Structure formats: C-alpha cells, structure tokens
C-alpha cells in the first residue's frame, strides 16, 4: 500500500473491502479520471457504431433517428474516396488507421495501469494513456476541421470526442483526496444537486440547446434537415447577407431607431426621478407614481392598439390639435411616434431604479450644501446627479448593449405596411426570412451577426466605462 493515506481513509477500509484496496493505491482523482475515461470511450464507441448502422441517437428527442443507411454509406464512401481524400488528407485510410492504433494503445495502457496497480513500474502508464487520448482527440478535431467536406460532421461526430476532455479536466480539478471525504461531501450536499437538476435541465435544453443550431448559419439551406446533417457552406450566407439590400436597410433601421431611443429616451427617467424626488406632497407623489408606472404593465399589442386609436387621423391628438398629422402612416412621423410611445410606456417604470439610488444618497450632504446657501438647481447638479452617476453609467452600458436588438414584440405590433421601409429592423428581417420564409441559413447568419455585435458592444461599453474610472457592469 502507498503511504500517502489519511486516517479517515483507513477507517473506511473495511466497508469498501477489495475495491477500496485497489482504488486506494492511486490518488483519488486518478481513479475518477480512469472511470470517467472508460465511460466516455464506451459512449464514443456506441456513437460510432450507431453511425455505422445508420442510426443516430438524438439527445434532445431521446429517440433514435433513422438516417437512411444509403446516405450514410454514400457519405462513408465519399470520405474514403479520392474526392474526399483530396479535400481532407491524402491517405485518409492510413490516417484513420494510425489514429485507431493510438487509440487502442491508449486503452491498453490504461487497462494495464489498473490491473498492474501494485507494480510501481506501471503506475506512470495511466499518464501515458491520458496523453495518448488527448493526442487522438486533438487530431480528430483538427481532421474534422480540415475535412470541411459534405460528410465532415456526419461521419465523425465531434461531440463524443469533445467529451474526452472531461475526464482529463477532472484529473486536474478533482478536489477530494480520499473516498471517505467524497462520501462525507455527498452525504451533506446531495440534496442540493437534486434540487438543481430541474432548473439546470431547463437552462441546458432551452438556453444552451439552441446554440448547437447556430451552426445552421455556416451550413447549406436544407431547411428540413437536422442542422448537423446539412452540408457545410462556409461563410456564404454572411456574404449573401451583406449583399442583400433588404438586410442593409434593416441594419440601418435598427441603428436609427436604437440611437433615437437612447438619445431621446435615456434622459427621461433620470429627469423624472429627480423631479419626483423634489415633490414634497406625499400623497400626490404616491398617486403620481402609481399612474406613471401603469403603462409599463400594458402589453405591446395593447399599446399599439391604443396608439392607433389615439394617434390616428381622427384620433384624440389630432382632434385636440385640430390637425391631421399622419403620426403612424408617414415614415418620418412613424419613427418619432415609435420612439415616443416607447418613452410613454417606460418612463415611469424607469424612474424606480434612479429613485432607489437617490434614496441612498446621504441627506447630510444636502443639508451641508443648503447651509452654504445652495439653491435647488445647485443641489441637484452637485449632489443628486453625482450621487446616481454609477447607476446612470450602468444603465447606459446596458442600453448600448441593446442597440442591435429592438424589442420584437414592440416592432411587430407597431409596424404597418405604409412604413415597412423604416420599421423593418434586423429581427423582423430574421423572422420574415427564417421563420415565415424559407431562407433559414441566411436568417441564422444575420441572427449570429446580431448577437455577436451585441456582445461586443456590451463589453466594449463596459471596458470604456472602466477605463474612464466608472464601476462598470462586471
């Protein structure tokens, strides 16, 4: 037996008997890694056998999807044919054979290291085994990236290979040095992991699940096929999007509406919050807040309904002014109506955060300034505004992050055929082409572009804020 065992470990020896004796020779994490690796190998083998039989197990539907065996056979044939070899490696068969041999050797090394545990000579074998597996995994992934032919991902599924990294990571990060410690931890915390199962399943399925389908942007527009089985198209659809005048128009509309929204809408809640804070009639203040918050609770469908009624040709506003301004039917007017309706809906609600921040300002500051003779405006300018500056910066960063995405519900409810020229933003384009229309790949490419630019804007704004000495978002 090795001599690096803790007393806790010893006391549990009898309970686990023979298995414990075997396992205890290695540090705990090595054992876990070995078990994990074996599981992953079995999983990968199953996946490859699946594909050989022309069957794929769909992890999301939990069903076996029958790929027509002819298709698979054709794809396999293609990979091993001259054409496939040209695009991939010259000697694809040889390459595969070498990988397979390394793989087998790795398994043998691992097996030996477990069986011959007692001999110190073999102990380092497991590390060689892991090394070999890393090598195989990396080569496989590179091979797939290079072989961006039709059958690339279909024949050699990347995902089981990626899982090979999991046991290797465990090797380095497994935090327990003995089985007893592990059992102690599990006893104390297992309930918490059970509680987490459902929410994490929700997050994995509905938030991470779609991320695999982002690949659709890089694949041919075979819109009825599963995304993974579609042939690769490279950056074709990104190029197509930027040559599409409709997309460029949608891009422009998005930027125009968002910038106007920020310039006109962003200061409103700040001003209102400061004014609300200045209101000294308690009851009036409460009633005002209740009424100003109300529009936030109306859905965009309702708000659009109210807007068409009130801003129509014979609506309330035009009747009151005695005019017939085409608020919602003339493109230029519509842009401003759109922004102002947004402000109308959100201005009261937006004040809450600022009001909370103002409440946090030390009242002694005001008193001291008042003693020095400062009037209302100077108090606001020198105390209130600097006091809520971090919150202003935070919300500004968030709204800069939102420049690329307009609210889908809002724009869908407020657009009408006369203003499509200025109202159709990126999201509407994506919807029209990808969901209502049949250009899924193009729409996916545009959507990915939008997400990436959004993230860059958000973190760019955050970085800039931090550079200028603000607290920032993260």
């Amino acid at each position, binding site marked *: 037996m090795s001599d690096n065992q803790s007393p806790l470990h010893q006391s549990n020896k009898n309970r686990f008997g023979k298995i414990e004796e075997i396992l205890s020779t290695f540090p705990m994490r090595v054992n876990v890694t070995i078990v994990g690796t074996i599981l992953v190998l079995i999983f990968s083998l199953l996946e490859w056998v699946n594909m050989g039989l022309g069957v794929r197990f769909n992890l*999301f*539907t939990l069903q076996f999807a029958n790929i027509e065996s002819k298709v698979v056979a054709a794809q396999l044939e293609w990979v091993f044919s001259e054409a496939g070899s040209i695009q991939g490696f010259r000697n694809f068969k040889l390459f595969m054979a070498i990988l397979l041999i390394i793989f087998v050797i790795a398994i043998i090394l691992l097996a030996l290291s477990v069986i011959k545990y007692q001999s110190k000579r073999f102990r380092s074998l497991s590390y060689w085994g892991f090394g070999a597996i890393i090598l195989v995994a990396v080569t496989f992934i590179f091979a797939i990236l290079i072989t961006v032919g039709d059958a690339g991902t279909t024949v050699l599924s990347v995902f089981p290979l990626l899982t090979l990294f999991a046991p290797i990571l465990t090797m380095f990060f497994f935090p327990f040095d003995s089985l007893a410690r592990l059992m102690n931890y599990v006893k104390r*915390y297992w*309930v*918490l992991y059970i*509680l987490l199962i459902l*929410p*994490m399943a*929700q*997050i994995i399925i509905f*938030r991470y*699940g*779609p991320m695999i*389908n982002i690949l*659709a*942007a890089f694949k041919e527009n075979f819109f009825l096929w*599963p995304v993974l089985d579609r042939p690769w198209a490279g950056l074709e659809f990104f190029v197509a999007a930027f040559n599409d005048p409709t997309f460029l128009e949608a891009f422009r509309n998005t930027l125009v509406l968002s910038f106007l929204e920020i310039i006109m809408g962003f200061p409103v809640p700040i001003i*209102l919050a400061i*004014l609300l804070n200045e*209101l000294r009639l308690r009851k009036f203040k409460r009633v*005002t807040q209740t*009424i*100003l918050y*109300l*529009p936030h*609770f*109306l*859905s*965009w*469908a*309702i708000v*659009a309904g*109210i*807007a068409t*009624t*009130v801003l129509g040709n014979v*609506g309330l506003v035009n009747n009151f002014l005695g005019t017939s301004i085409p608020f919602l039917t003339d493109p230029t007017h519509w842009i401003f109506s759109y922004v102002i309706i947004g402000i*109308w809906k959100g*201005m009261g*609600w937006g004040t*809450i*955060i600022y009001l909370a*921040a103002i409440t946090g300002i030390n009242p002694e500051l*005001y*008193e001291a300034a*008042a003693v020095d*003779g400062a*009037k*209302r405006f100077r108090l606001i300018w020198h105390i209130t505004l600097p006091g809520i500056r971090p919150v202003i910066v935070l919300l500004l960063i968030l709204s800069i992050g939102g420049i690329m995405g307009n609210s889908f*519900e809002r724009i*869908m409810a407020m657009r*009408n055929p*006369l203003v499509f020229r200025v109202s159709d933003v990126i999201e509407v384009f*994506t919807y029209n082409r*990808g969901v209502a229309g049949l250009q*899924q790949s193009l*729409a996916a490419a545009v*959507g990915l572009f939008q*997400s990436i630019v959004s993230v860059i804007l*958000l973190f760019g704004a955050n970085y800039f804020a931090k550079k200028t000495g603000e607290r920032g978002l993260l």
Partner: protein
Amino acid sequence: MNLNKSKFGDFVIVVVFILLICICLFPMMNVFARSMSSPHYLIRSEVSLFPRGFNLDAFEVVWSDSKYTWSLAWTAILTLICTILSLTLTVLCAFPFVYKGLLGRKTLNVFMIFTMYFGAGMIPTFLLMRSLGLIDNPLVLILPASLSIFNVILMRSFFYGIPDSIRESSEIDGAGPFKTLILIYLPLSKPVLATISLFYAVGRWNGYADALLFLRTERRWDPIQLLLYRVQQNLTAIDVTQFETSAGNAPTEAIRMATIVIATVPILLVYPFLQKYFVAGVTLGSIKE
C-alpha cells in the same frame, strides 16, 4: 427641513406632473370611452375622454364570440401554470447557491449568467423547438420561458440576506437542506416570492413573441395578446386604406376597443394592490446587482 427651495419651483414641478398624469391617462381613457360609445358618435369621432351614447354592445359581441372567451380562459390557465412552474424552478435554482461550500458553485453561476448576455437567437431556437416537436404545441408557451435568470438572481440575493446562522442552527437540529428550504427560507421570503410570481404572471399575460414564433398553424392555443395582435394587424391594414376617405368603421372600432379593454382589465384590477411588490422587486434587483 428647509433647503432653500422656492415655492414657485414646487408649483412648477406639480404642474409638470399633472401634465404627465394626463399624458399617461388620457389615451387609456379614450380607448375605454370609445369601447362604450354608440356608433353615432364614433363615426363622427366625437368621443374623447368619456363615453357618449353609453352602451355595452361591443362587449356583448366580444363576450359571445367563443374565440375571445376561450382565449381569455386559456391565457388565464396558462398564466397560472406558468407562474407556479416558474416560481418552483426559480426557488430550486436559487437555493443551493446559499451554501458557500457547494462544489461547482462558481462554475454554475457563470454557466447561468452567460445566457443573460449571449442568446442563441431566433432561428436556432426555432430549429430546437422544431426538433423537440414543440411547434404548434401548447407546451411551447410554458417550458422555454419557465426560468428567468434575472429572477433567480433576485431570489438568490434575497436568500443571501437571510443570516447563515439561522440555517446552521436548523442543520444542527437535524434538518436537511430541503427541510431548511421549506420550513425556514420560504416562510421568510414571502415578499420576494410575491414579487417574482408577479413578474412571471405579468410577463406571461402580456407576452406573445413566443406564440407568434412557435404557433405556426394551430390557432387553438393563441394567448389573448396574440389574438389582439392579429386583430390589430388586420384592422390597421383596413385603417390605412380608410385614412384617405377618413370614414371610420365604427362598430368594428368599438369591438376592437372592447377587446383591448377586456385584455387590460385583469392587469388594472390587480395592479394597484400589488404595485409595491413590483417596486420592491426592481429596487432589490438594482441594489444587489
């Protein structure tokens, strides 16, 4: 305390707010008034803030239309189911983070927060729903939106506010984590539970983007807001052609107004009583950011 503030300034501020109140209320009053007015006045567009030629014909038409009544009932059921499910998931997701010794706590946190900043987008989500067989399925209105990370963070920061010593003493008394959650944490966090369930309920009642995207051909599961959206889109198309002649279609308009009023009333009924919970939620979220 007297802070050198002029009476005149106060007066101006009060006037500004009275104006703002008018701007907020008048459009809604106008819609209410129109839904209850007689066609005679509607055609000549003489209805402003109060109904003229009061009648409830439009509401009767809407009530007798099974499409609307079913949609209202379905949305109510849906809101109830979604709120209960979402609240459960939120509590389950937030509670384990209270345990500082939980392995993988930081990883799980990053795993969760990441999805707040990067979403897959419309088409990948649509494709996922298709491969899950959720298109035209009522479950698509329940499951995908059943957990809001923002609300989890809200819940979590409230849980963090409960002293660890309470938890530890309950554990010394032999209660496991689950018992601690049910017997100690939940009773202490009633206000935040109210806030979060309201967020979910209002979100479900008002939302229709998911319905618009994922209910392609099946009209049976349309929530009320999607129905309103469809009515709205059809009628704006009509409105647009009629702008030239400026002759409104009064009965249709009254009916359209009535549908809006009916979908708004539930919110208006609960809103004044629950406003403080909403405000509390937003404030908590902003402070614990």
